[in-house]
């Protein structure tokens, strides 16, 4: 097999950051080449250089044997490189078909040929296993997973020789990932090369042919076989040795419930949800994408108004976010960029967003104390870079997530709601986050966790609730469940007594 793409000594610098510092990469025709690396290692930057978004400061890129320096995204696409970017790059107010063909619309004299575009979109979506997504619908109506499929359809709509996928599985549920792998196999069977980025090592072992590992903008291992033992891969990335590291826990709940949710309902989203969380307990909610878990958390937090039912924290009714926060509830929402972060503000102000009033005296903020507290939290979370004055925008995705979680470590949080806390978070940071959650629980904080990664729910939680189509259908201590059981419940509700849903 010949190398279709070869990078050597590629350097890319942003003001104050050397994001790529001598990267080597060689991708062969028809292979799935995985890129591994911690948050901020430079993976996204690397593929943006390939996609013509950034221009390398130095180094050499050979594409199909020729020197290659795409001046624009269009140039890269014309050369045969299609990219699915990490941040969803869709226009919400265009239809699915319009997004798929944005920039290369089928047209005659400038008039769009909508039926042609719709038909071709439908074909591509069907190939992708999603004939149910209507090409004419506005993209804003799709759930995150649907948007990811549209991004993928867009990449396939080009006649690409190389498709780069930056964490495509981060927002996908279990069965979706299997579907994605089927598509990747079909692509590679046709000689198309795929560069695949993911923080989940199991996926890489399953789909990857070879692996290149980045650390701090440098290639630390190039072209390893995908079956390389986890220990070695993780070691190359971080110096650690394990993927999921769940700290040992002795269940010690038993006090009176901290959070009591009673018969909570919101029309069209979820209904009749009752649950409790005790101090020091970690309760996990498993479920499919779109099963209404995010809405449930937001409603408990008071950010959405319930149609029916009550939420009480320590016996006090919660009816609004302000009150929830005041009484010690915190939430790390699902979409960190749009729901949690002030991207242009420094890290420390983001961390203290919910607690700066507490630091303040008589309405005057205390930036010094805030900064010091934020630094301590940044150390706890091993934030990289550990600079709390840097705008959050310049942090990698995983580190941004740490900032969001860190926000609730600063206040006097007694109940923490976590929605997909490790989405896009690297192996090392993930372990650190798990440790943080455990430490919190050990301090008596109750945690309600939503995650699409079943091992995470099982490994982290004391007690697991399974949610399906807006209802809780099962509850059991984590120890009594295994991955397959949970997946069965999530998909089919097969352990359900009445099969009501």
């Amino acid at each position, binding site marked *: 097999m010949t190398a279709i793409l070869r990078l050597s000594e590629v350097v890319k610098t942003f003001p104050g950051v050397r994001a790529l510092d001598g990267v080597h990469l060689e991708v062969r025709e028809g292979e799935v080449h995985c890129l591994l690396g911690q948050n901020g290692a430079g993976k996204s930057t690397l593929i943006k250089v390939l*996609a013509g*978004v950034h221009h390398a400061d130095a180094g050499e890129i050979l594409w199909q044997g020729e020197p290659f320096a795409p001046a*624009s*995204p*269009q140039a890269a*696409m014309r050369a045969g490189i299609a*990219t699915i*970017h990490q941040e969803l*790059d*869709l*226009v*919400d*107010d*265009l239809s699915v078909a*319009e997004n798929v063909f*944005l*920039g*290369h*619309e089928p*047209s005659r004299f*400038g*008039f*769009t040929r*909508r039926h042609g575009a719709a038909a071709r979109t439908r074909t591509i979506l069907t190939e992708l*296993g*999603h004939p*149910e*997504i*209507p090409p004419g*619908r506005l993209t804003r*109506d*799709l*759930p995150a*997973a*649907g948007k990811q*499929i549209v991004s993928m359809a*867009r990449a396939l709509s080009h006649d690409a020789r190389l498709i780069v996928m930056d964490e495509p599985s981060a927002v996908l549920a279990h*069965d*979706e990932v299997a*579907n994605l792998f089927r598509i990747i196999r079909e692509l590679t069977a046709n000689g198309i090369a795929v560069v695949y980025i993911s923080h989940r090592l199991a996926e890489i072992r399953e789909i990857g042919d070879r692996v290149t590992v980045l650390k701090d903008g440098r290639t630390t291992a190039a072209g390893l076989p995908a079956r390389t033992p986890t220990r070695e891969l993780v070691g190359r990335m971080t110096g650690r040795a394990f993927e999921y590291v769940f700290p040992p826990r002795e269940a010690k709940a038993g006090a009176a419930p901290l959070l009591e949710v009673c018969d909570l*309902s919101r*029309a*069209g989203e979820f*209904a*009749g949800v009752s649950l409790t969380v005790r101090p020091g307990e970690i309760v996990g909610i498993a479920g*499919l*994408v*779109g*099963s209404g878990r995010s809405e449930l958390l937001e409603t408990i937090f008071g950010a959405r108004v319930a149609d029916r039912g009550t939420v009480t924290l320590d016996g006090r009714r919660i009816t609004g976010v302000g009150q929830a926060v005041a009484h010690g509830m915190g939430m790390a929402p699902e979409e960190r960029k749009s729901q949690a972060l002030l991207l242009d503000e420094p890290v420390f102000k983001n961390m203290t967003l919910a607690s700066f009033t507490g630091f303040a005296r008589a309405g005057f903020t205390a930036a010094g104390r805030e900064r010091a507290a934020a630094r301590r939290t940044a150390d706890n979370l091993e934030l990289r870079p550990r600079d709390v004055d840097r705008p959050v925008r310049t942090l990698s995705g995983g580190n941004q997530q740490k900032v969001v979680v860190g926000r609730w470590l600063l206040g006097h949080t007694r109940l923490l709601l976590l929605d997909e806390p490790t989405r896009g978070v690297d192996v090392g940071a993930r372990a650190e986050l798990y440790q943080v959650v455990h430490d919190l629980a050990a301090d008596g904080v109750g945690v309600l966790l939503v995650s699409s990664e079943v091992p995470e729910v099982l490994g982290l939680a004391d007690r697991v609730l399974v949610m399906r*189509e*807006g209802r809780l259908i099962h509850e059991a201590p984590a120890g009594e469940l295994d991955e397959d059981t949970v997946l069965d419940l999530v998909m089919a509700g097969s352990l359900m007594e009445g099969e009501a849903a």
Partner: protein
Amino acid sequence: MIAETALPKAPKYDDNLLRNLGLVGVLLVLVVIGIVTRPELYSDPSWVRDNILTILQQASAIGVVTVGMTFVIIGGGIDLSVGAIIALAGVWSTTLATQSYGAGGMIFTALVVGVAVGLVNGVLIAYGKLVPFIATLAMLVSARGLAAQISGKQTQVSANETINSLATAKPLGIPLLVWILALVVGAGWVLLNRTTFGRRTVAVGGNPEAARLAGINVKRHTVLLYVLSGLCCGIGAIMLTSQATSAQAAMANLYELDAIAAAIIGGTLLSGGRGTIVGALFGVLVFSTITNLFAINNLATEVQNMVKGGIIVAAVLLQQFRYRSFTNLLRRRNVGNNS
């Protein structure tokens, strides 16, 4: 599988349609107020017909400008210089020198001036990286200054009968200016909804980064948007000049505010990425119907103004209310009751 549950039901209703229905409702309410307050006028069908045509004719120039403005706003910008462009194009096309070239020369001049000023706006914004607000505000000031300079601050009378007759011609019984408005609105609708240019406008305004990643030349497109707005102003300048049979540096005063307000009332998002041409037209019609209502009731200007603010607020609230209650209704119906 994106479960059917995860995909919201296919909309049986359309955001934009509902909004526009809301605006039609507002228009109807205004007409009803007219009928109630001046029944004797409204009892005469030929007066009613004339009145409708008058409203449309009064809306024509600002309507054309609003179409261009809507494109600019959807594309993520704003154009504060539209009134000034009209003044400059109007004045330039009515200088004695230009008038000596006849109607063709005057129209050509107005359009070229509009396009040229739009081009300067676009280049300053796209390549000079100026904030649109500042760039077009600077253009507002400069273009009005230049117009004053060219006209020597005099009102320049158009001696060209062809130009002047544009405002009086009534092919098929409908004023020519209204035909022009209809044409521009129609063309704008097709351009926005049926061409790659329109789709790219939405992309550039809604998510410039995504547009760039999709290979769209965002800068060039931005320039084109301001050129389009300038072109609409050129057309508007000819329309206004023919109506006033003259042009001057102070003409089309504050058109920018009216055009922006009409676009927004019509459902265009000031932050870009969303908007409709038909909504903008309704926005313009609401304003021009309000003016008409005041005129037939002969309200004092200060009362007019006090009431006008209230009507605008009420119109938008009404529109929102209709919209919300309607979607709530649909939602309830789709969901059924959970127990």
